[in-house]
């Protein structure tokens, strides 16, 4: 068995874990990051893409709002390339309590959110599909953030500073030596190979799964309540600005324009399993009704896909009454040396994507304290790889790139404009990747046809390029079709149903995929 030795072992390859790896690597620590599946496949990759301005929490949770205000400004600098500066709006619809708007303005002023009331006419001229019956509108600096791009950039940056990033390495056991955690044993679920990792400090950055990893370390009372929420991606940008309902945070109160789609979110239901990806019909109905309130005609517009994200809601069963930690604080760093008398383990859970950098900073501060080191955090000033110019991405980028090579490039995924060259590059860089892994990197198969036209092309190219045997290639194809189907069937109506029927004719009728040898 291979044994690795490192300063810091980070468990969890979401935004938080990758953020911890980047932060620790920048501070000169040796880092190994393990993730049970692909990077950002858990909660991070399953959110709507909103970079909060702080407006959403200005009334309900001023502390969280202040964090968002600060982090929004920092991320716009250091993760510029992962962010589209869409701007945001809060609008008072006829269903919102009219008095809330004034409290909202006051709340924004109190916590420092740049908020400007604009005429309803101006809001409607900027966003013509918005409900014309809104009574007030406010501009805030919300934005949309591409979480995959962010996590890849974090991982790339960490690697450039010496970190080893190991996706598809699941923790089998957390190693204890008396009152110290000394690392973990991990297994590649695809090959079955195991690696022993010795670490001076282990960071449990597994979000909704944090209680499980803590339990593997023999630590009790890390109660993470998984809160399940669905999101629906609509086929194109119904709005180009983040549009929020001006009311207390609730279900279905925001539409986020992210990349080529607009996402409405979200519901909120407690579950007992962080891998619970249930989508209930009533939740879909609720989201569509909520969408209709912001954008009339929402139900007639085409829904592409629905998915479930599970957010970690932390409740510390061990929290001492004397604890000064602000109880409204959304994330929690648990130094298990102070909390449980167990050295070498820090847990970070709760929180939100917008504040991942701050969470990582506080976590690595705790790690440094355990190691007896004094090293300043640099993530608020050091740009991520790709963000050095400080320029935000814009929606037209792929179209512009394609325009420059119009005749020369063969397209594989037409909806998301992925060229054959890009796909081959990805296959070469990640030889063991599934199509779903490639999807997260390239957005392949994420457009209107949901893989109907690009997946058989991709399978063929993987077969030719990667030397993937025909049977394996068939398996890869079927796995991906299954994966896409999960997010399709609960929203099959109207245009997407027509698409699904056409795709079905292609795969069942022409290719007879069910009977391919595998």
């Amino acid at each position, binding site marked *: 068995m291979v044994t690795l030795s490192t300063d810091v072992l980070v468990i969890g390859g979401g935004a938080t874990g990758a953020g911890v790896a980047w932060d620790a690597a920048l501070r000169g620590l040796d880092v190994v990051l393990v993730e049970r599946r692909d990077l950002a496949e858990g909660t991070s990759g399953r959110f709507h893409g909103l970079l909060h301005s702080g407006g959403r929490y200005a009334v309900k949770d001023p502390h969280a709002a202040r964090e968002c205000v600060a982090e929004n400004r920092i991320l716009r600098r250091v993760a510029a390339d992962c962010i589209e500066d869409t701007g945001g709006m809060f609008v008072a619809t006829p269903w919102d309590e009219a008095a809330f708007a004034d409290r909202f303005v006051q709340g924004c002023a109190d916590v420092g959110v740049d908020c400007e009331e604009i005429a309803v006419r101006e809001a409607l001229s900027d966003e*013509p*599909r918005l409900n*014309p*019956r809104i009574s007030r509108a406010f501009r805030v600096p919300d934005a949309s953030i591409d979480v995959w791009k962010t996590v890849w950039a974090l991982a790339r940056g960490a690697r450039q500073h010496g970190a080893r990033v190991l996706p598809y390495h699941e923790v089998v056991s957390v190693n204890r030596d008396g009152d110290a955690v000394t690392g973990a044993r991990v297994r590649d679920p695809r090959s079955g190979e195991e690696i022993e990792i010795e670490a001076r400090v282990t960071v449990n950055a597994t979000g909704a799964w944090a209680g499980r990893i803590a339990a593997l370390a023999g630590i009790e009372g890390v109660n993470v309540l998984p809160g399940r929420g669905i999101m629906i991606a609509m*086929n*194109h*940008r119904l709005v*180009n600005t983040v549009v929020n309902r001006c009311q207390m945070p609730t279900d279905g109160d925001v539409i986020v324009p992210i990349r*080529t789609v607009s996402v409405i979110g979200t519901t909120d239901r407690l579950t007992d399993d962080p891998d619970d990806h249930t989508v209930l019909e009533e939740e879909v109905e609720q989201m569509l009704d909520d969408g209709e309130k912001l954008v*009339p*005609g929402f139900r*007639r*517009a*085409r829904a592409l896909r629905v998915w479930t994200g599970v957010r970690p809601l932390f409740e510390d069963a061990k929290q001492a009454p004397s604890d000064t930690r602000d109880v409204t604080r959304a994330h929690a760093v648990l130094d298990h040396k102070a909390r449980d008398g167990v050295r070498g383990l820090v847990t970070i859970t709760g929180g939100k994507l917008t504040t991942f950098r701050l969470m990582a900073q506080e976590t690595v501060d705790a790690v440094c304290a355990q190691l007896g080191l004094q090293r300043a955090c640099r993530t608020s000033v050091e740009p991520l790889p790709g963000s050095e110019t400080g320029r935000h991405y*814009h*929606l*037209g*980028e*792929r*179209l*512009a790139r394609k*325009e420059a090579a*119009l*005749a020369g490039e063969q397209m594989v995924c*037409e*909806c998301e*404009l992925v060229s054959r060259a890009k796909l081959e590059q990805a296959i070469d860089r990640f030889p063991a990747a599934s199509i779903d892994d490639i999807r997260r990197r390239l957005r392949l198969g994420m*457009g*209107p*046809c949901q893989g*109907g*036209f690009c997946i058989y092309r991709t399978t063929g190219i993987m077969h030719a390029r990667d030397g993937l045997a025909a049977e394996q290639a068939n398996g890869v194809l079927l796995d991906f079709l299954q994966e896409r189907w999960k997010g399709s069937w609960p929203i099959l109506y109207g*245009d997407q149903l*027509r*698409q699904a029927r*056409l795709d079905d004719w292609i795969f069942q009728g022409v290719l007879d995929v069910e009977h391919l040898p595998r």
Partner: protein
Amino acid sequence: MTDLLELAEHESPRGSLDHCVKCTICETACPVSNVTPLFPGPKYAGPQAERYRVGGEPSVDASVDYCSGCGICTQVCPQGVKIAELNARARDALKRDRGVPVRDRIITRPTALGRLGTPAAGLANFALGLRPARIAAEKLLGVHRDAPMPRFAGRRFSRWARGRTSPATGRRAVYFHGCGTEYYEPETGEQVVAVLEHNGFEVVVPSQDCCGLPLQSSGLFDDARRTVLRLARALDGALGGDPDTVIVGNATSCTLMLKREAREILGLEDDPVLKRVSERVYDICELLLELHDRGELRTDFQPVHETVAYHAPCQQQGHFIGKPALELLALVPGLEVRELTARCCGIAGTYGLKAEKYEIAMAVGRELFGQIEGSGAGSVACDSETCRWQITHGTGRPSAHPIEYLHRAYGL
């Protein structure tokens, strides 16, 4: 009200992209992308690229300007995606960003050109026939030296119309003659009037200008809006509030502009006058065939012993009225009609005049030209004037509006 609003948004060109299932039928039918790599195709430039466009952000896909605007993609789409309309809007945004060439500002204004050229027709026609002058025009303006140019008639149709009165019959038709008839082919207008009168119509010819289509297809939307609304008001005035009066035109692309394109592409759905006018507009052959279906068309045709090939222009197909000319021509005894199946002649209004697009337009037309040459027909009937000029340019065969054959057969 909200329901109507919703419906309008959802059925707008942008909203219609939701219906695309990527079937690629439009790409196989597109005459332009099949002959040049410069235009990436209707599915690509339309519903696909549209998902990457944000109002107010700079245009990044100049290739959409290579769409000829023929509209075949919209016609063949089984899902109802307004592809050509999406492309037209993208082109407008592009022109706003990058500016409009002087050439496009000139050739999109047939009224101004006609007014300039008509009094000096002899000189203008002479100049247009001179090779050095055409080469200079290509270099200075970007109008291709070989592009088919009509000859100024030297007289205006409206002058002729003003000098006569149509007998009152109680059945009125407002004649929308268009710029081609006005400045280049006034005889076609005279034939239309004669055929309508022969069938019992009192023909009213109000003072009128361009419909704005050339401006629209070159992406000059603001000017196009002003122009089409001015025309709509002129025609509406001539309707005189009579619910039975029809508006009839012989320029199929211009009548399509009034019927549908101005409202859909220029976003003029809400203009009540344009709406009223658009509901009343007929293509001349459409109107005559409707009369025939009701048993009201006079069929006192004399035999015409000729073979004629018929090409239905793309814009005529955009009316979704079938090919009424074909059925009308079949009523003429002795006339052998050969239906041409090639979709497009390539010219698409002013597209094929432009220096950088001339070769593409000729390549598009090649299939049609070949069919005409193999048809054994002595002449070609076609509803649109720019297509006729292109066909004659591409084949050397004379071409005429279908009404010319009917006019002849009536012995008028």
